[in-house]
C-alpha cells in the first residue's frame, strides 16, 4: 500500500515524523481513517486513541491524544495537538490521580464553570487510561 508523510506536532516537540500507511482518529463527526492520497481535509480531533499504521502488515501503534486537529493536504497528514503520548509511555498513576481529582470535583458539585473544566479533565484522564490499558 502507498504511504504518506505523517507529522504529529505538540508544543513540546515534534512527536512523530515519518511514513505511515493509515491513521485513524476520532473527530467530532466520528472515527475517520485516512490513507495516502486523501483529498484536502481538516477536522477537530477529540481526546481519544489515535491509531497509526506505519507499514503494511505491521501492528498499528496507539497513542493517546488530547484535543487537536488533523489536516490532510498534498504534502501529507499533520496532527497538531496539545499533548500526545504513546500507549506504552503513559504514566498510569498520574492519569489515575487526574481521574480521581476530577471525579472528586464533579461530586462536590461546584460551580458550572468548574464542573465543565473537571469534566474535560476527566475525559482526558479516562482516555489516557483506556489507551494505556490496551
Amino acid at each position, binding site marked *: 500500500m502507498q504511504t504518506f508523510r505523517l*507529522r504529529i*506536532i*505538540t*508544543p*513540546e*516537540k*515534534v512527536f512523530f515524523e515519518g511514513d505511515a500507511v493509515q491513521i485513524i482518529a476520532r*473527530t*467530532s*463527526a466520528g472515527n*475517520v481513517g485516512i490513507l495516502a492520497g486523501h*483529498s*484536502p*481535509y*481538516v*477536522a*477537530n480531533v477529540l481526546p481519544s486513541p489515535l491509531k497509526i499504521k506505519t507499514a503494511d502488515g505491521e501492528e498499528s501503534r496507539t497513542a493517546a491524544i*488530547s*484535543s*487537536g*486537529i488533523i*489536516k490532510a*493536504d498534498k504534502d501529507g497528514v*499533520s496532527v*497538531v*495537538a*496539545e*499533548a500526545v503520548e504513546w500507549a506504552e509511555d503513559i504514566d498510569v498513576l498520574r492519569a489515575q490521580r487526574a481521574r480521581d481529582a476530577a471525579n472528586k470535583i464533579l461530586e462536590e458539585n461546584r460551580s458550572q*464553570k468548574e464542573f465543565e*473544566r473537571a469534566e*474535560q479533565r476527566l475525559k482526558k484522564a479516562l482516555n489516557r487510561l483506556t489507551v494505556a490499558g490496551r
Partner: protein
Amino acid sequence: MATANMKDVKRRIKSVESTMQITKAMELVASSKLRRAKERALAVQPFFAALYDTMSDISADPAFSSVYTKKKFVRSTLVVVVAGDRGLAGGFNSNVLKAAAARIDELKAGGEKVSLVTIGKKAVEYFDKRGYDVTDRYSQIAERLDVYDAMDIAEKIIHGFRCRDYDQVELVYTTFVSALTQQPVTVSVLPVENLENGAKGGSLTEYDPSPEEVFDGLVPQYLSGILYAAIVDSYASEQAARRTAMESASDNAEEMIGQLSLLYNRARQAQITQELTEISSGSLRDE
C-alpha cells in the same frame, strides 16, 4: 593604626571572595538553564507554525466569521503579564513590569477597565502590592512548565472572553533577542487578528464539520500555544539576563579584590617600613 587597617582590608577581601563564589555559581547555573530553555523555545515553533497556517487558511475565506475574530468596541481588557520567579537578574523583572504598568496606564487613560493575570512570582507580588485588579495568579510554574499548565490558563482566559468579562486580551512578556538583549513586548492575543491571508486555494479543503467550528476548536490550542511559547521565551530571557548580570558581578568582584589586594600590600609594606625605621632610629639612639 596600620594593623587595624590591614585586618579590615583582609576581611573585606574575604567577603568579596565569598560573594564572587556565589555569583560565579549562579552564572554557571543560569547558563546551563539557558541552554535548555532555548531548546524548549525552539521546539515550540513547528506547533505554532502549523496552527497558524491552518487558521490563516480558514480566515482567508471572506464569508468566514468567528466570535474570536470579530472586532468589538473595546471597553475592558485583560492583560497577561509574564515575569520571573526570582530576582538577581539585572533589569529583567523591572523592565517587563514597567512596560506592563505603562501599557495598563495607557489603557486606563483610554477609559478602559483593565484586569490582570500575573504569571511569575515577581509579577504577582508587584501588582498585588499596588492594588491592581488581578483575577488569577500563577507563581513558580515557568521552570517546570508543561503544556497542561498552559492549557489550564488558556481555558480560563477563553472562558472569560466568551462570557464577555473582557473584550480583548493582551500579553506582556520578555522576548529573547540574543544572549545579551532581551526585549519586553506587548502582543494582542484576542480577538485573533493579523492573520496573514493564506493560500486562496484553501477553499478546496473540506472542513469537518465546518470551517467555523474547526477554527473555534483551534483557538484554545492557539492560545495555550502562545502562552506556552511566551512563558518559555520569558524564562530563557530571565536566564540570559541573570547570566549577564552575574557575569558582570563576578567581574566587578574580581576588580575589587584586585584593588583591595593592592591596598593590603601597600599597608603591609608601610608597616614593614615603619618597623624598620623604628628599629634603626632606636639603634641610633643607643649608640
